[in-house]
């Protein structure tokens, strides 16, 4: 029962980050923008095309099939996607072009339960495979957009943050304030955030800095307002 509740809680949390990520994923491609400047012509370089949704899906499917990755991911653990991005090929110095005409993906995940970063290079297209897989203890991975969004949602649900927003007349009026964030890495090494993944958020309106600066410990999911 406890496990079931914990699972539901985690799935609900994950859903929030998934929805946030959806908003970021819907990007128009440049070719959809009409170029009204006659002296500027568009052309396509296939080697630079960002990963398509199908390629991202293939990268994750290949990772799923990889025995080593499977062992790392199949468990009731809180894993977040840090980023998935097209991997650039090395330059062929003789031709001045990318060395190979191939599609690859860099995939970085962070496991909050084991405090490990999982990074992979996945070859896409025909004969896809996990070319490289590394598991690194600690939090070397930079923040991912999903994590920043998760921090934002945790802060907005925090009673002290809500009290601050209420005092400013902004509680429940999210469209009227702006939240910015940075990774919080304290100078004092015995603070939890020196070993956890933490984000400090700054609340603003168009005309002012509100002075609400919650530090969100994503590892413990706790919010501290200073």
């Amino acid at each position, binding site marked *: 029962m406890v496990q079931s509740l914990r699972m539901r809680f985690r*799935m609900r949390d994950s859903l929030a980050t*998934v929805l946030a*990520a*959806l908003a*970021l994923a819907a*990007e*128009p*491609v*440049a070719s959809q*923008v009409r170029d*009204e*400047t006659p*002296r*500027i*012509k*568009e*052309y*396509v*370089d296939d080697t*630079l095309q*960002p990963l398509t*949704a199908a390629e*991202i*899906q293939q990268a994750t*499917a290949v*990772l*799923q099939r990889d025995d080593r990755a*499977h062992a790392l*991911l*199949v468990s*009731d653990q809180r*894993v*977040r996607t840090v*980023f*998935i*991005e097209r991997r650039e*090929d090395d*330059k062929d*110095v*003789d*031709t*001045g072009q990318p060395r190979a005409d191939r599609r690859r993906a*860099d995939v*970085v995940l*962070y496991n909050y339960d084991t405090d490990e*970063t999982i990074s*992979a*290079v996945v070859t896409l297209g025909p004969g896809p495979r996990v070319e*490289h897989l590394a598991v690194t203890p600690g939090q*070397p*991975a*930079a923040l*991912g*957009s*999903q994590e920043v969004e998760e921090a934002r949602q945790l802060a907005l649900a925090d009673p002290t943050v809500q009290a601050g927003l209420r005092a400013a007349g902004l509680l429940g009026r999210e469209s009227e304030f702006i939240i910015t964030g*940075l*990774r919080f*890495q304290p100078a004092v090494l015995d603070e939890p955030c020196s070993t956890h993944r933490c984000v400090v958020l700054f609340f*603003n309106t168009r*005309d002012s800095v509100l002075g609400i600066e919650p530090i969100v410990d994503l590892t413990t999911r706790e919010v501290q307002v200073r």
Partner: protein
Amino acid sequence: MIAISLRLVTETRSLIQAATLALILFMATIAPSAAQSACNTISFAAGTQWTLCWELRLREGLVIHRADYRDKAGVSRRVLYRGSIAEVHVPYHSGSPRFLDVTSSTSGLGSNALDLDPSECHGVLVSRKVCREMHDRGYAWKFSSFFQRGEEVTYWISSQLGQYNYIISWTFRDDGSIRPEAGLTGRLQVVKGGPAYAPFGGRVNPESASPPTFGINHMHNIYWRLDLDIAGASNDAVNRITQAVHTGTSPDAGVNCAIVRTCHINLHTVLAVESIERLVPFKTWHQIDKGTLNADGRSIGYEIIPEGNQLWTGPSSEPWAAGELYVTSYNGCELFAVNNNNPGLNPGCGSAAPHVQAMVNAQPINGADVVLWYNAHFLHHIRDEDQLNMLAHHMGLELHPRNWRHINTLQ
């Protein structure tokens, strides 16, 4: 009974594991992907042309790929294979924080690129986040009543990194010059109260107020990684030009350099191996292609023109902050000035050099494929104009064609 319970538990666990994996992979399939790219041929009124591609990458932001310049005579050559920002290092005077905005303190310049409103782009929004503008840039040259006005094309994004907003731009001019630039604006990131902060910052509340509040002074150290492939990737060389007072003889009759001390010569040093370069004494650098000569027999190249830097070096714990120009040989795993071998940033490159200083390891560069890393500094000494919002400060460098032709590139 026990066996049935165990089987049930095992099956339930398998279901939970399968559900979790499905969730992780579902999240992965729709992971944030702000990546975009496009390529353009830009033809200027002067008859010159740039051909280039841009890409929005999550960490480095706006990256330029394979920029070729065609001069007025119609000769087209590769200039830049890849240009990017390799780090934004912002150490505060009170000792902390010391942000590394590209590699660890944020999710990156591209991840944090804002959607732009059409009203803020005086050109074409080539994506929701990238603006392209054609500008008249004033005189390209003028003599007496004769003149030619110049044009340029600029690609830019706006990245919100905490309270700061970085306007990252790449400008390509009709004369072949390139300007990578960062505009710093937004709101003050670190504001502290109490008289103890007085030596470290600038007062931001009224002098009569108590306690005093200070915006903490800080540096912006921006690293541009410039993989110049002038007329091809290989056979590059970098020439360091140092201006020195000349006390020897002068070719001009009546000038005694030893007495007047107004004579200067430029000392040319072709760098043999990878190098960390300082801006002082007065220097500039030429990257040339050793195999391509202009009509007058001189090697073609580009000059790296530094801009009014406040010189700064970091402590021993920040060894990457040791110079203004790092000259390295090409390595596809060397993309970031700091945290370069972090597997959570640069997968598959765990054995690469950790930072740009470590990339300088005596490999020969004379005749190699050279990569330049330019570190521009700006001391942000807090002023009242930083409130609210902070007036933008622009910093960068210039890359000018040098001996590209035997005459002006626009003629």
